[in-house]
């Protein structure tokens, strides 16, 4: 038994296995609770597909954010980039049709991410400050763009808000980012920069270039998330006064899981399972009648406890 456990722990699928088991436990706990308190309100197959749908949306955003956090940077403009990408999509629909539903938000996100990266590289001030400042600008731009064609997505263009296209689109995004991590230099160099920037530089890594690329990838996948988010919600109002920041945190939850489980080699799978679990928990708390505020507090604490229990850090290891 002991040797089996030892072998299991050293397996590259150990982390994912643990996450799946925890997800199952979360489902069982909420299903049991709601069976008593509010029968039929949680955990049925159709509802599980809804949780997965929401999880997929945030997972796509987390995919790009992952590169930023791995490098030791941060991006506070996630929410504003998503909103601006959605509004750009709506604005160009009369001229570009379907192209505007898919390509425009992705290109917008990519451009905004690139701007973030270039401003960061040029000004040489911390990424948190740069992206916070830029998010204010993106928010202001979203107000201007919203005036072009309103804030509603025409119903015929909302196919990415439901199965199977949302799943196909999300899977394509996961495959692309998984490929980037494993089969291009960016994945390796992002980890190297996050680990020790100076050593990475000495190994010939163009640190600034890859930081810009990380911020650009972050923007690109925000644009991709915007495709799903707009399809799901079918409308987006512009946000100002930093209100877009609220959209930062659900993708960030997934990044937590990705970072914590990356040593098992499958950060994207961890992101997706993590986001699905968070989505299920949020729905579960609603089903048992917990208020939104308490719901968010308990969900936040639960995620922290899960991460603490599942990612056992070696005693004495530096945790940043």
């Amino acid at each position, binding site marked *: 038994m002991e040797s089996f456990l030892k072998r299991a722990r050293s397996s590259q699928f150990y982390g994912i296995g643990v996450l799946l088991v925890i997800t199952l436990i979360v489902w069982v706990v909420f299903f049991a609770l709601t069976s008593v308190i509010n029968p039929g309100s949680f955990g049925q197959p159709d509802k599980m597909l809804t949780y997965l749908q929401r999880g997929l949306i945030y997972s796509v955003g987390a995919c790009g954010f992952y590169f930023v956090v*791995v490098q030791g940077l941060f991006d506070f403009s996630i929410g504003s980039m998503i909103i601006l990408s959605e509004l750009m999509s709506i604005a160009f629909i009369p001229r570009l049709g379907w192209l505007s539903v898919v390509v425009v938000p992705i290109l917008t996100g990519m451009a905004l991410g690139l701007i973030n990266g270039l401003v960061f590289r040029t000004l040489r001030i911390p990424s948190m400050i740069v992206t916070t400042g830029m998010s204010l600008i993106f928010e202001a731009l979203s107000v201007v763009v919203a005036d072009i064609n309103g804030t509603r997505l025409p119903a015929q263009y909302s196919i990415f808000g439901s199965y199977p296209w949302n799943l196909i689109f999300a899977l394509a995004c996961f495959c692309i980012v998984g490929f980037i991590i*494993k*089969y*291009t230099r960016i994945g390796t160099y992002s980890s190297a920069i996050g680990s*020790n920037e100076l050593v990475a530089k000495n*190994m010939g890594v163009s640190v600034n270039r890859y930081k810009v690329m990380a911020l650009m990838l972050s923007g690109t996948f925000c644009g991709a998330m915007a495709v799903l988010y707009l399809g799901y919600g079918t409308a987006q109002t512009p946000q100002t006064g930093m209100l877009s920041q609220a959209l930062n945190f659900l993708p960030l939850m997934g990044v937590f899981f990705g970072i914590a489980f990356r040593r098992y080699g499958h950060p994207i799978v961890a992101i997706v399972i993590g986001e699905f679990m968070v989505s299920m928990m949020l729905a579960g708390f609603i089903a048992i009648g917990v208020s939104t505020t308490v719901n968010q507090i308990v969900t936040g604490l639960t995620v922290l406890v899960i991460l603490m229990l599942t990612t056992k850090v070696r*005693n004495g290891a530096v945790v940043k």
Partner: protein
Amino acid sequence: MADKELLLHAEQIDKSFGPTHAVDHVSLDFYKGEVHCLIGENGSGKSTFTNMLTGILPIGSGTFTLEGTQVAPKNQVDANHLGIAIVVQEQGTLDGLTVAENMFLGDEGQFMRGGIKDTRAMVKKAQELLDDYGFGHIKAQDPIENYTFEERKLVEIVKATWFNPKVLVVDETTTALSQDGRDHLFRIIHRVRDHGDCVIMIDHDMDIVMAISDRISILRDGEYIGTVATEEVDADRLKTLMVGREMNEKYYRTDWGPSLAQDVAITMSHVSVPGQLEDVSLELHNGEILGIGGLSECGMHEVGKALFGASFDRTGEVRLADGTEINDINTAIDRGIAYTSKDRDNESLLINDTIADNITLPSLRDYGKFITASKVRSEAEKYADLMSTKMVGVSQFVSALSGGNKQKVVIARWLAKGSDILLLDSPTRGIDIKVKSDIYNLLDEMRKQGKAILIISEEIAELMGMCDRILIMKDRKIAAELARDRDLTDTDIIQYMI
């Protein structure tokens, strides 16, 4: 060296960091098929010189000419492509990457096909190399953080040598390796030399320098002093050349009488730490230097941490003479215990902070509610001067100091704190003989003042020369206790280690 062919010529190499003239117009020749040691005190410019050669630092002025072609590498990978490689003194591998990714970091081009990395081919090549070097127990696909400091150093050695560099720089690497690791390194060095290439080695261990080198060049305060054939000098002559005067004052303690030790300062009773220590008990007395020796992985380095309250999952008891239990670092520091780690850069120093901040850090809580910059500065200056730290000023960043001067900063910190119990793990690791001599004199003075000192060391001569008692550890336990004795020999100690 008339019979040897010139490989690398350094012409008027010069480098300054602000007001510090680190390398002062050094010209040197390196020949094919030789092991060429660079020696000098800490801060003499050895590492700066080789760092310029290997692309870690840009060249200030002057030229390196390799086989008739002028070279100025922009980084380590660029240097590798020119046929120059380095194994650095501190950790040169990166967490978050696999062993294979670390081995080919910056040089993935050979595995890229149309912008796509062939991870399988990379892992396969890395594993073949590890197997070929006899390090088959290291798996190329594993995350590098699964391995010990020494194993990671072995990965670096493979990384630096697999492509048969014309010039291999080995910068103070032996101190990170056990005897087994050193044997591997020496075998590789001989292989490079026998292949007709050149090894430039920096090491403070005179025995190693004398045993492995063909020629030795000496730097002092950034200036080139001279080059000698190893067979024509002895260790004493080299020391004189390094320091610039005869080293005729005492180096180790010369007293062999009864120990000054009287009352117990700190007691460790039946302490165990999973995988590190098993039921270890010891007493450290006031006015005593107690040594702990053994092979690198015997658990001795954990003893210092356990006494300092820094061990995790510790069982057993650590208690001061007044009965205070030491279970955490804050209590230890408050009760006058000081600890310096073997891993100086990662565990003892705030490497990207100033000398002043490093020295005063544990003392800040003694300065009252308000801490003034002038108080911090004056305290730091007082103790940095006391340790004769070679620096521009206390506002200089520690990262710019040489290894020996960094260690002086660490010791100055605990002098400033007024600690009575000093737990020193590898206190002279990577330190030149002049600084070593200074530290030994200081420790002896402190012993005479009644302070209790524990030295954990992999250098047997240091243990024999400085300690009143020596505890030898093997397999996480204390295997023997030896009293200070003029007739004690290396063999007496080694027999308990292995």
